[in-house]
């Protein structure tokens, strides 16, 4: 049983043709389900709880990367297989998952290749791929409660990447600009990171977040996600699910 979450931006007239084409393709593939049009009166968390009661198997987010990020942070989301139909041709999440934009994603949903992603959290905000933390001057990270890393330079970027299919580790890359012509990079692997005194906005899976103190660690949540053939290689693990689909598309 499928549940489709429509991003509030899809209310715009420009997306009407796309939704018609997508719904036709999903019907042809036999991937019918209930449609929820998100808005001020209909919140994503309530829908996920409702679908938990209805015992749906798959929730598909149709919209922007922001909607997918919100879905990751919904309660009980680990009980579902999650799909994504990006509307933006340059969707970063779509590229990582190997899902083409708009109605072409229906084919990926029909193939139903799934991967298990180990989620991580940054201050209780879940993410599955990467954090980007810009810094300037001197910054300190405390890693694994064992050691501290102090960086000094004009400016730089810290990237913390979750390795979704590798044993609960982050790959932290530090790109530091020491002068106009001199740059360096460092790489660490750790399981827990604490930042303090952050001054600039950070990006969590492409979504902005402004905090001064940041704690990054893994959470005991594994999310099954439908991926395409062109997915990022880091998402590959052993699990492959069979093709399935049933029912007609219900028009709300």
């Amino acid at each position, binding site marked *: 049983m499928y549940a489709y979450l429509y991003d509030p931006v899809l209310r715009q007239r420009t997306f009407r043709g796309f939704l018609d084409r997508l719904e036709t393709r999903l019907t042809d593939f036999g991937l019918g389900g209930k449609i929820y049009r998100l808005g001020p009166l209909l919140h994503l968390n309530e829908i996920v709880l409702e679908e938990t009661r209805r015992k749906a198997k798959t929730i598909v987010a149709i919209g922007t990367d922001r909607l997918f990020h919100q879905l990751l942070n919904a309660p009980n989301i680990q009980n579902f297989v999650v799909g994504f139909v990006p509307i933006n041709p340059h969707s970063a999440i779509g590229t990582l998952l190997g899902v083409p934009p708009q109605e072409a994603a229906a084919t990926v949903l029909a193939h139903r290749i799934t991967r298990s992603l180990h989620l991580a959290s940054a201050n209780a905000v879940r993410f599955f791929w990467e954090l980007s933390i810009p810094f300037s001057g001197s910054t300190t990270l405390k890693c694994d409660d*064992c*050691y*501290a*890393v*102090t*960086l*000094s*330079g004009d400016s730089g970027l810290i990237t913390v990447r979750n390795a979704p299919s590798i044993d609960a580790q982050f790959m932290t890359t*530090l790109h*530091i600009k*020491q002068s106009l012509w001199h740059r*360096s*990079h*460092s*790489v*660490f*692997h750790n399981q827990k990171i604490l930042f303090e005194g952050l001054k600039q906005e950070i990006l969590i899976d492409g979504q902005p977040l402004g905090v001064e103190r940041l704690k990054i660690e893994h959470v005991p949540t594994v999310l099954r996600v439908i991926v395409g053939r062109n997915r990022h290689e880091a998402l590959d693990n052993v699990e492959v699910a069979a093709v399935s689909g049933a029912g007609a598309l219900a028009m709300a």
Partner: protein
Amino acid sequence: MFGKSEDAGSNRDAETIIGPSVKVDGDFTSQGDVVVQGMVVGTLKTEKSLCVSAGAVIRADVRANSAFIAGEVHGNIKISEKLEVTNSAKIFGDVEARSLLIAEGGVLQGKCTMVKEEKPAKAVHLETPRKAAAAAG
């Protein structure tokens, strides 16, 4: 022979790279290869190889399977296999290794212990009294 590049082993394969403007303070442990180009204070342990680049400073006790040192180390070094010290290296502390190679110009100020390869003990067959009697008779 001793003039080879300080990057013994590609940086790209290293699990951990501590860059030039980075300082690590505390107990650092790694399962893979480590390259140090900055500063480490505390303890440094890895199960694989350690490469200390020229200009790097380590003020820590070091333990690794093998090591290539071109920088400065203030602390004791314990290496399971081979320790290679280049002409730009300065080590102030005790060193223990199975195999040691020091280039001309390299500084080692401390006690040096070479770990001997342990030969497996010979098997001793004990005869039972009956067998001994049978053999004698």
